């Protein structure tokens, strides 16, 4: 290199030895804490990531096998904790770890910046987060959700007795939704098909419920054949939500391109924040919002609240509401009681650095799966 080149190198304020050791921000360890709720038996896994400097970040996913954890450790070891976007890609073959480790890295980045995560991500875009409870279709469950502060509930559609039920099935669905509405006038509902209906029943259900004003109809049928699913979307104005099983953004792009989806439901446990932000960017160009699917634990709820406050096209966040008090106690013991409290339909933002929660490791030990 000539003298001029050397001079340039010296002057350019580039990261010194950028490709070399990331120093104190290098990831030193990654640990998994499998958890089980005592009554519901719902399981999820907390993930702890630590840097050499001692910063700790937390994330969460569903189940992680020892092999998956070992593979993830190999990928992140010694990498800079702030490179959450690159490590998300590198972990994409281990979807749960992509989500969990990604959250933990963002938690660390926020703590490093001494700012709530939503601020690191460009927010807040809103000052509170609309909440959705997934409940059974019973009067008790609706009352419990209302009393807990929710004003939106996701309820399962009645199980069809057989394939292609037609009129009989629609009557059953309509009856269920009518008494639900009567039981909670100030609540809105998402009807969850659980991917269990035939496309024909899904289409007639969606059409029959148009006047009921569902927030949306969720996973009415399997996403096996886009041409078939498209027919449902074409025949109804009831909004459709899909996506809890989707991991690639390109799959959402197909749904958007085919005019099938009105609200994206990417799962926090599969995708993590960085990937859902990419999916949301895509949805924005179709004037479509995201409502992340969440059936895990309280750490992911914290992450979800930050995600919601960073996105422009966010609508509602599913926040688990365990029916049993011991399960609720467990969640509060892990992440603090305030994280999942809902008032007048909304959850509050967490304003502390990173995820804004202090995970109690003693509680993780106590509720070990």
């Amino acid at each position, binding site marked *: 290199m000539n003298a001029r*080149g050397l001079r340039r190198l010296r*002057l350019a304020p580039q990261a010194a030895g950028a490709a070399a050791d990331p120093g104190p921000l290098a990831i030193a360890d990654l640990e998994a804490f499998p958890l089980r709720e005592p009554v519901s038996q719902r399981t999820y896994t907390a993930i702890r990531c630590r840097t050499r400097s001692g910063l700790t970040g937390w994330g969460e996913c569903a189940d992680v096998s020892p092999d998956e954890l070992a593979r993830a450790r190999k990928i992140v070891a010694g990498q800079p904790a702030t490179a959450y976007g690159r490590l998300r890609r590198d972990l994409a073959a281990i979807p749960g770890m992509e989500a969990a480790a990604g959250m933990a890295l963002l938690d660390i*980045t926020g703590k490093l910046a001494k*700012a709530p995560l939503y601020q690191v991500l460009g927010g807040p875009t809103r000052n509170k987060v609309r909440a959705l409870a997934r409940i059974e279709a019973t009067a008790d469950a609706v009352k419990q959700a209302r009393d807990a502060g929710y004003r939106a509930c996701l309820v399962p559609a009645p199980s069809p007795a057989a394939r292609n039920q037609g009129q009989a099935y629609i009557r059953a669905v309509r009856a269920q939704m009518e008494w639900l509405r009567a039981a909670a006038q100030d609540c809105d509902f998402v009807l969850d098909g659980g991917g269990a209906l035939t496309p024909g029943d899904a289409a007639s259900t969606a059409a029959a419920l148009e006047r009921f004003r569902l927030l949306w109809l969720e996973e009415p049928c399997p996403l096996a054949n886009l041409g078939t699913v498209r027919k449902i979307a074409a025949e109804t104005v009831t909004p459709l939500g899909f996506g809890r099983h989707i991991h690639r953004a390109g799959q959402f792009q197909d749904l958007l391109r085919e005019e099938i989806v009105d609200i994206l439901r990417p799962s926090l446990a599969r995708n993590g924040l960085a990937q859902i932000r990419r999916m949301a960017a895509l949805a924005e160009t179709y004037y479509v919002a995201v409502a992340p699917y969440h059936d895990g634990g309280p750490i992911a709820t914290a992450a979800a609240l930050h995600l919601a406050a960073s996105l422009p096209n966010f609508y509602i966040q599913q926040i688990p509401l365990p029916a049993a008090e011991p399960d609720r106690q467990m969640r509060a013991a892990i992440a603090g009681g305030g994280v999942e409290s809902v008032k007048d339909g909304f959850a509050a933002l967490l304003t502390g650095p990173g995820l804004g929660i202090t995970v109690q490791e003693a509680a993780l030990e106590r509720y070990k799966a």
Partner: protein
Amino acid sequence: MKRREFLGGAAGCGCAPALAQNALGRDAFSGAGSKIKITNLKVFGVSLTPDSDRPYVFVKLETDAGVVGWGEGTLEGKAGAVTACVNDFREFVIGSDPMQVEHHWQSMYVHSFYRAGPVMGSAISGIDQALWDIRGKVLGLPVYQLLGGPFDPRGVRGYYHAGARTREELERLRGVAVQQGVSCFKSGIPGYYEWIETHRNIDRAVKAMQLLREGLGPDIDVAIDFHAKTSPAVASILVKEVEPLNLLFVEEPCPPENVKAMARIARRSTTPIATGERLVAAYGCQALIEMGVVDILQTDINHVGGITALWKVGACAEASGISMAPHACEGPIGGIATLHVDAAMPNFLVQEICSGVEPAMKEKVWEEWLGFPAMRMVNGRFPLPAKPGLGFDLSEAALQKYPFGGTRPMARVFHGDGSVAAW
């Protein structure tokens, strides 16, 4: 309901008196935002030469925390319009929290009602970059780290423009490139093109492209910019003819408004197609991405809507396997800002800078302003800034040597019969 109530509730007609702001307004975020407030917005027109057709439009935001942010909204030939548009956004930013960049972006875009064209897109770009600069400085991290990067810690791969025209010049350039580690060049095609072209002009263009590949050799990536001076009919012939050259891409084979027209060109050839420098927001790229027209998107951080919008275009593109090669032909602030986004995109390919292998007058001025050789590659890559924010300091005094010389139109070219040509 009375009609008046309906209109009021729906915030309806254009003739309504000024709509009341939502009662929450700016105070909505008092508990959730930062304590920092933007205190001033300044916009600078900067002409490197008095007759420059592309004076830089720089935006500076000042805060009550002492932190300032710089951004760029240079729009070639429309400096006055962008300057005015930035000032139109004054009320959007003064007194508000600089950390909420997404909120401000949405507000500028959505509350402008007409959505954005290039003037508004460039104004939003300037403000957005300045907000990110502040955000990074306050949070103590370079912008590419806030975005989750870097994907490649060695820096951002770039390309220069090849000014060489003869075989000898090209071979000399190839030698310099090998020495400097530069791995890619871009050039144009000669002349202006009519709707349908003669065999002479078609052959001239093909020969010019062949010469580029031959002169630069097989180991350097070659991109060719048609600059939208060709019609789909003419471009289709050229793009197909140069398939054996294995170009990195052909850029803007026709103008960008009609996506189907560009799709027709792309469909008839295996040559990769790139476009996007004139597009605003991810919305502007939606049809191109959905229809699978292009292989590469080139949105420009000074027009697309800044860091926020360029990152989103990258995310949308990635879902369809499209690569990013952002355009940059304006000043050093946008240039540096785009490096931060490049470093945080998994589908990043290569970064443009409208410079040659040897720095010219403008690069010397940039170095004088910023204290380092901005947008000059080392071993074929732009080094990543290490400091928080965008990673540079700039004083207003440094700009004063290059006062605004007024808006000048870009080049106006005409065919032999006097009709309007594109360049």
